[in-house]
């Protein structure tokens, strides 16, 4: 493994191109994420935000460019996907919990099946994670018995159970009721404060401003502008960024 020094980025995306058929989605995206960083990717619908983070854990492949996750080249036909997915956790817009498993089983399943952890250890860890996302007592509830916000917190716990080095959040509050958005954002904020490396695609501008170390604005498959939240939200330079912010803020 080449990745070792702490000054190396944890995730390094270089000149990534991606198209679905004749539709170009990513047109040369480059960005680095350092360990412990929280970065937010914002931008209009169809600008390639979700595709970009789905490429990081190889749910989508890329046409050209390089994505390095702790030295692991994602754009390598011989990529060990299991190795990659042990490093990268993902939380989805629609939670995507396993509906036939209880909250506890949802969290335990991957450590037991994929990491071959012993059941007792994983169960203890899963209960601890449920507590962390403030869902003690819900271990035997099925996803269908939980609210959207609760399901999303189980999904975050499920991702954490694999002890990833970086977690991707793909518009995780977009499907939630306004009153449950807060509880999920609070959970993510606590993770960020614990030093977890997070890459978020989000439409929650106030949240991005509060937790992000760095904001990236994408439009038509390129990164138009980026910067720390203080400067990004106050004096955006590109007219497209300004237009987007004026509509959304």
């Amino acid at each position, binding site marked *: 493994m080449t990745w070792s020094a702490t000054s190396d980025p944890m995730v390094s995306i270089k000149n990534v191109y991606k198209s679905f058929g004749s539709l170009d989605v990513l047109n040369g995206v480059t960005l680095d994420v350092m360990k412990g960083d929280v970065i937010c990717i914002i931008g209009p619908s169809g600008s390639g935000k979700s595709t970009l983070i789905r490429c990081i854990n190889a749910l989508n492949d890329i046409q050209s460019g390089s994505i390095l996750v702790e030295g692991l080249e994602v754009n390598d036909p011989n990529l060990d996907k299991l190795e990659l997915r042990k490093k990268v956790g993902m939380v989805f817009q629609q939670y995507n919990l*396993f*509906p*036939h498993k209880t909250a506890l089983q949802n969290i335990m399943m991957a450590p037991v099946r*994929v990491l071959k952890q012993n059941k007792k250890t994983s169960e203890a860890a899963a209960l601890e994670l449920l507590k962390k996302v403030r869902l003690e007592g819900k271990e035997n509830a099925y996803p*269908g*018995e939980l609210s959207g916000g609760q399901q999303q917190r189980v999904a975050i716990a499920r991702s954490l159970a*694999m002890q990833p080095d970086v977690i991707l959040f793909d518009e995780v509050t977009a499907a939630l009721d306004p009153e449950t958005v807060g509880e999920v954002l609070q959970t993510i904020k606590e993770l960020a404060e614990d030093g977890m490396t997070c890459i978020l695609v989000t439409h929650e501008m106030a949240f991005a401003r509060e937790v992000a170390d760095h904001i990236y604005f994408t439009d038509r498959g390129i990164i138009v502008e980026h910067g720390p939240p203080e400067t990004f939200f106050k004096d955006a330079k590109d007219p497209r960024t300004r237009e987007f912010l004026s509509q959304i803020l």
Partner: protein
Amino acid sequence: MDFIFEWFRTLYSETGVNLPFIYDEYDRKRMAEGLLTTIWLSLICLFFSVIIGVIGAWLQGSSLKWTRRIVNGYIQLFRNTPPLVQLYFFYFAIGTLLPRVENDWGGTSPMLGSFAWAAISLSFFAGAFNVEIFRSGIEAVPKSTVEAAEALGFSRLQIYRDITLPLAFRVVIPAMNNNLVNLVKTTTLAYAIAVPEMLYEANQIWSDNVNVTEMMIFLLLAYFVLVGVLVAGMNKWERAMKIPGFG
């Protein structure tokens, strides 16, 4: 018990309604064996047809073109031909190609008997439908759920076993029940290659006693009860598999 047998004997002599499979020990034994053969054949075929369905649906999702083609060819072949012709094909065409083995009486007999051929033939017949049924169930599992499992590092086989199949099963239970009910009824075709199942034994009894009407009524009721028990069991299973907020 004797007074019951006596009652049915009297029923016969007084009214002419002849139910020898109740009062006559020999016929009773024949009927019981027929019933057991039907149940045994049904259970074997139920089991293997579901196994074929699960494996076939898995192979249908293969990335190898020829694997998919073979599975589809199998489905077409068994779905588009009558089960009786399939049974004859297995028993008379394939059965005679196999070597004969020496039997207990010093002669030779076919390697596989009629019961084994009926079990094989009917399992493949119902299995072809089960593959299609399971495929429809697998397609009903949201792609995003499978993606979540992928993102957690599950392998394709683990996803199929732990996520896709359990969810697909719940979707397909009603369709599968229909197919399995048909399968139990189709076991009567084994009569054509002299498997001593219920219809065959009933035929033996009515040939000896000339009580065709009674035997026909009995057969109808017997299958009604048999399939009724299967359906009740399946419904119970369906309810037990229900999960809150899904399906």
